[in-house]
């Protein structure tokens, strides 16, 4: 087979424009496939994983947008006393946009000493000391920093909130990298004097071995006697329900991913068929020279496979690079889904290219291997 590689190669570049266009088509298709896959993976990460299931979110009952949930901050003391609670972090959430958006900015205000204890966070620029010592200091997730071009030393304003950026962090939880952390009391005051002593939610860390759902029920029933009723859910479930509308959309979007693969398949199958029809006589001549029909069929498949693999690899690399550098996230009501590159995305992009290349070559290859030689030669 390898002896014939130069022949296959020269055949492929015979129609440069056609080959290049097919490669571009395959690249676009696999690009879309990878992007949609990244959204899907982001959603899966949000609702699964340790962070999503070992912590609880206490929110005001029947409220959805973070600006409408208003809980007395002293609930924290009550919750902390319950059995099975390791820690409680009161949090103020402030967002520029309660609707679904691709460029959502979400401030989370919490006591700085609590933020420092989050074991998911790692500062890659700036220092914790400057964050703790300055009341309007903020540390910015790497995705937001990339998206908005933010760096340490700048100030950043959204609505009535202006913060000084003193650090940039990475997180083991992708969607956390879309957040900006500030001091709780700063964000409360910035959001208006009525907000002092009031916070949006409590994040409750559950002791290992304790059933988070039982604890959630206990929290809600304990706080039921207070001035404002609460709903407590696992963090993953909370985020999924906040993003419910988006989740529906994303589930629809993954069909788009399959559709783009289908388009690549039909594009490639058409070009491969055209290429073989151009070469009916040549393929017959090869067989007269003594090349087995199955081997000529393999030439055809090799060609469509190569084209699809080259295009698919390009599309996959562009998608992964864009995802890595764009720091894209989609968000609604203060919760965000991060789109991140991953190895599994790269592998599935390549696998799809391989499969499509193979399938697209199959029918033309079969035609080539079974065509009668004499009529083909007389074309």
């Amino acid at each position, binding site marked *: 087979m390898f*002896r014939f590689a130069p022949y296959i190669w020269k055949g492929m570049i*015979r129609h440069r424009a056609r080959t290049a266009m097919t490669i571009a088509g395959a690249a676009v298709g696999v690009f879309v496939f990878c992007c949609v896959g990244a959204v899907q993976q982001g959603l899966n990460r949000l609702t699964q994983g340790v962070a999503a299931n070992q912590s609880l979110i206490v929110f005001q009952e029947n409220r959805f947008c973070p600006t409408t949930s208003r809980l007395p901050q002293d609930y924290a003391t009550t919750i902390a006393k319950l059995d099975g609670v390791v820690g409680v972090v009161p949090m103020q959430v402030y967002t520029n946009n309660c609707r679904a958006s691709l460029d959502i900015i979400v401030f989370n205000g919490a006591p700085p000493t609590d933020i420092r204890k989050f074991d998911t966070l790692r500062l890659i620029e700036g220092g914790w000391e400057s964050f703790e010592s300055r009341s309007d200091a903020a540390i910015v997730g790497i995705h937001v920093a990339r998206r908005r071009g933010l760096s340490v030393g700048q100030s950043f304003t959204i609505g009535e909130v202006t913060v000084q950026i003193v650090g940039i962090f990475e997180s083991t939880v992708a969607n956390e990298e879309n957040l900006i952390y500030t001091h709780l009391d700063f964000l409360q005051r910035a959001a208006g004097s009525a907000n002092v002593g009031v916070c949006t939610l409590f994040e409750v860390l559950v002791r290992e071995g304790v059933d988070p759902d039982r604890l959630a029920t206990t929290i809600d029933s304990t706080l039921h006697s207070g001035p404002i009723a609460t709903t407590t859910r696992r963090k993953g479930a909370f985020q999924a329900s906040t993003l419910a509308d988006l989740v529906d959309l994303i589930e629809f979007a993954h069909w788009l991913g399959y559709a783009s693969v289908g388009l690549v398949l039909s594009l490639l199958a058409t070009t491969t068929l055209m290429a073989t029809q151009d070469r009916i006589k040549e393929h017959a001549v090869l*067989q007269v*020279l*003594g*090349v087995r029909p199955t081997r000529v069929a393999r030439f055809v498949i090799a060609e469509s496979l190569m084209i699809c693999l080259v295009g698919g690899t390009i599309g996959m690399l562009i998608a992964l690079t864009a995802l890595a550098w764009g720091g894209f996230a989609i968000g609604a009501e203060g919760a965000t889904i991060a789109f991140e590159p991953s190895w599994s995305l790269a592998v599935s992009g390549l696998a799809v290219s391989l499969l499509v290349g193979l399938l697209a070559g199959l029918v033309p290859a079969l035609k080539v291997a079974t065509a009668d*030689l004499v009529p083909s*030669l007389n074309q």
Partner: protein
Amino acid sequence: MSLVEIRGLSKVFQKGGETVKPLEDVDLDIERGEFVSLMGPSGTGKSTLLNLVAGIDRPSAGSIRVGETEVTKLSRAKLADWRAGHLGYIFQTHNLIPVLTAYENIELPLFLLPLSRTERQKRVNIALDAVGLVDRAYHYPRQLSGGQEQRVGIARAIVANPQVIVADEPTGSLDADTGSQIRSLLCQLNEELGMTLLLVTHDREVASLAGRQLRLDHGKIVEASRVRVANSTVGG
């Protein structure tokens, strides 16, 4: 034992509602080293006979043996393998692969044989030398003249040193001058290299080169000498 042995060969085509029988119960023997030409009116089945010998078409009845091989009994894949080592086919139009150079075109059939790189090189150079195109080795078909292209086609047919070479009107699309070049090349293949040739042609001059001249008429093969005798009888 003759090299090619054709027995009871028939071919029937269904064309629309009509049945065409270009070959009916044909017997033919070709000896090793023989140069046989086959003439006859258009549409009598000369190409059909050639294609059956080359195993690229199937007979309706009868058998063809070439050397030790029962050509009519082989599968399509086995036929391809057999052609690679034993049969050279010269087309009317050269049918070269346009994206490959003259050298690469000639080398292509050798990829199918268990030959080393140096052995392939040696054989391609011998074939190029035989057709007088050593200085055109790295030209693409579109950079060659019609006669040169046909010579590359001939080099490709002989490069694997086949048992039999079949040629279907090899001078059919060439002008007189280049035609005569090809004629002397064919003679040279037979006389100097001892190759066995079965050649279909409309050109009397080409046919006259052959040691044995045949005609195909109404599905039967007749020795041309006998045809001449018959003609003179009718004429006289």
